């Protein structure tokens, strides 16, 4: 290593030490250089004197005058001007530093020391300035800054299961260190940085804490809220970087190398490549926008904005949907991600696919074979009223049909809902509060802990498995499971209402069950394996051939079971 190289290394280590970004190994290297090399110590002392002097301008509020033109201070154009200046600046060979032109060569022979005349006032001024400066310098010498090792804190967990490899174990209030890797296998965790930036990790997710203002999202999903105190927070992924400008945003990095960013509030910049400094392309995204960098490094902003696919606040511990374990399909009916972000007491109208809280009852027919796609919902492909008969029933937006669909009345009694209530009197004007809970096998469903999808015959709903897969990177969908049956009441136990429940995959019947009011079994356990190539899952209720009266059919605890991808 040449003397010039050594000087550069030393300068870099000193600057890092001053910045507080020096690592322990680098600090040890600096220690070694200063201990072994007198020239390094001279350079170090010279540097910190200069450092202290430059800082003292700041202490004395002179900085604007000596460093920079005051009119630019605080203007956003500064950054652009600086960036432009740096970009367009000529390369300066540091090996041969140029002398300052304005200073003439020194004739050392002509130096004659003159006696100093010191006044008490001048000395007092000097005393104050010198004391301040010396203290700054002295503090720097004796307190070289290293990384503030603990950088963040685990401020909350919900059903969290951490990988055994996660260093030191993680619990509530755990302090997290820079350069540590965290791997969350199940559940959620909230991490708050000392800068007050906060992230919600949704498993499976793996991150490295790189420093107090930067993380590396190896894979998985997170939502970040960055207050003004932490502006500049950076999320790096293997394929992109997201630089925050004071905002709330979500990031997903999948195993295929794609990175998605969604901005809920404020503004971020999505940059191609894992290096936030050197990148080929960047786009600013504002509230309500989404962008993606694909495997090839191509940046697009046509990505669908799906705020509900991110959990932005730590959910209650007892949610049925658990990242890494199972997706709650009732939450998806409520517009959520399957992990508690949806709304309760939501209905979906099979005629237009609209979400509402309309619990009215009516026996209504739609156009036969009509399938209603719902592009506004992220994970629901569409809804329909099964009619069956001679024409195959269309059950997906891609035209999959269910040829064995039995003929029904073609009528539906009420909207699809994630709030199972029933009016056994048939009073069409009743509101949900006035209706009875629909009890299935003695249990009242319809809560975040015991979710359900009520589908009074005749109704069908189709979930988009590909869209769901994309939202849970690092996992694969194993199977659909549910406890399903016919809700009963004392009034209806005497009536022989008959209904059928179906589970279809890409239009193919995978499991069905027929229920008769008042007869056993009142419920069945549904379990349908899902393969990687399966695209659509359809749940359907038909009237059993006796009309749809009393067909209060329910899919309780409807779940897509997940497993970590190999």
């Amino acid at each position: 290593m040449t003397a010039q190289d050594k000087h550069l290394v030393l300068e870099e280590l000193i600057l890092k030490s001053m910045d507080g970004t020096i690592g322990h190994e680098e600090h040890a290297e600096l220690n070694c250089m200063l201990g072994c090399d007198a020239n390094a110590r001279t350079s170090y002392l010279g540097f910190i004197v200069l450092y202290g002097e430059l800082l003292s301008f700041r202490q004395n509020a002179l900085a604007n005058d000596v460093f920079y033109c005051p009119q630019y201070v605080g203007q956003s154009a500064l950054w652009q001007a600086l960036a432009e200046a740096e970009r367009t600046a000529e390369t300066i060979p540091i090996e041969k530093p140029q002398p300052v032109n304005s200073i003439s060569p020194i004739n050392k022979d002509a130096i004659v020391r003159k006696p100093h005349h010191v006044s008490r006032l001048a000395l007092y001024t000097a005393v104050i300035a010198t004391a301040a400066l010396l203290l700054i310098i002295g503090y720097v010498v004796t307190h070289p800054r290293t990384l503030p090792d603990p950088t963040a804190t685990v401020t909350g967990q919900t059903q969290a299961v951490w990988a055994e490899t996660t260093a030191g174990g993680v619990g509530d209030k755990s302090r997290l260190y820079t350069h540590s890797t965290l791997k969350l296998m199940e559940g959620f965790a909230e991490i708050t940085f000392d800068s007050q930036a906060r992230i919600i990790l949704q498993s499976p997710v793996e991150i490295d804490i790189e420093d107090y203002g930067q993380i590396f999202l190896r894979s998985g999903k997170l939502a970040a809220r960055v207050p003004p105190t932490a502006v500049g927070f950076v999320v790096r992924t293997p394929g992109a970087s997201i630089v925050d400008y004071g905002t709330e945003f979500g990031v997903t990095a999948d195993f295929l190398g794609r990175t998605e960013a969604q901005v809920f509030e404020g503004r971020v910049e999505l940059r191609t490549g894992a290096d936030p400094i050197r990148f080929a392309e960047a786009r600013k995204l504002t509230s309500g926008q989404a962008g993606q960098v694909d495997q090839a490094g191509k940046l697009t902003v046509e990505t669908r904005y799906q705020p509900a696919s991110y959990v932005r606040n730590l959910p209650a511990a007892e949610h049925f949907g658990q990242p890494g374990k199972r997706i709650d399909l009732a939450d998806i009916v409520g517009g959520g991600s399957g992990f508690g972000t949806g709304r309760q007491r939501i209905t979906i109208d099979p005629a237009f696919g609209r979400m509402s809280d309309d619990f009215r009852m009516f026996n209504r027919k739609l156009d036969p074979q009509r399938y209603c796609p719902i592009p506004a919902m992220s994970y629901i492909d569409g809804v329909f009223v099964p009619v069956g008969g001679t024409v195959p029933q269309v059950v997906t937006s891609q035209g999959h049909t269910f040829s064995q669909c039995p003929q029904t009345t073609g009528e539906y009694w009420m909207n699809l809902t994630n709030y199972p209530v029933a009016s056994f009197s048939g009073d069409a004007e009743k509101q949900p509060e006035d209706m009875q809970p629909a009890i299935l096998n003695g249990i009242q469903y319809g809560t975040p802990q015991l979710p359900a999808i009520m589908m009074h015959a005749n109704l069908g709903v189709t979930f988009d498995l590909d869209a769901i897969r994309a939202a849970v990177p690092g996992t694969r969908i194993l199977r659909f499971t549910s406890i399903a049956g016919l809700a009963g009441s004392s009034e209806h136990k005497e009536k022989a209402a008959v209904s059928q429940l179906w589970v279809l995959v890409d239009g193919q019947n995978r499991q069905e069950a027929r229920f008769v009011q008042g007869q056993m079994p009142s419920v069945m356990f549904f379990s349908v394996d899902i393969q990687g190539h399966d695209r659509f899952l359809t749940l359907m209720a038909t009237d059993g051939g006796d009309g749809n009266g009393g067909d209060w059919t329910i899919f309780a605890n409807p779940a897509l079971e997940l497993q970590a991808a190999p």
Partner: protein
Amino acid sequence: MQETASWMWSHFDEYKPGTNFGAWGVQVARYKILKLNNQRANPRVRFNSDVVHLLDAEAEPVFEKISPRMQALEKCLSGLCERDRQLLFLRYEQGLTVKKMAQLMERPIQGIYKTMARVHKLLFRCVRQTVTIEEMN
């Protein structure tokens, strides 16, 4: 800082005109610094004690000329090009780390380190020369 200044002022009569004021100030500051160090220092973020002693032993001649250096530095800063002054402004007034500067300026970190090293070296040489010239006059 205030404590040191106050102590120096109250002990000003102990300063003997004609002796080296900087050296006297260094003694005062060193006493205060060591006291502060003993009170607060976290062993994990300190230099080894032998390194501190070496620096301490070699510091005095460097600190001696602080007062004239400050005036010289101000002059030297005014001679820098605007781009270099802007960098110093970001670093020393705004308090940005090199990493943050690189991020905001969309420049490689190593490039910023090199530029900073060049500017520091330029200033150091300029100050040394300026102080020497002032001593001549």
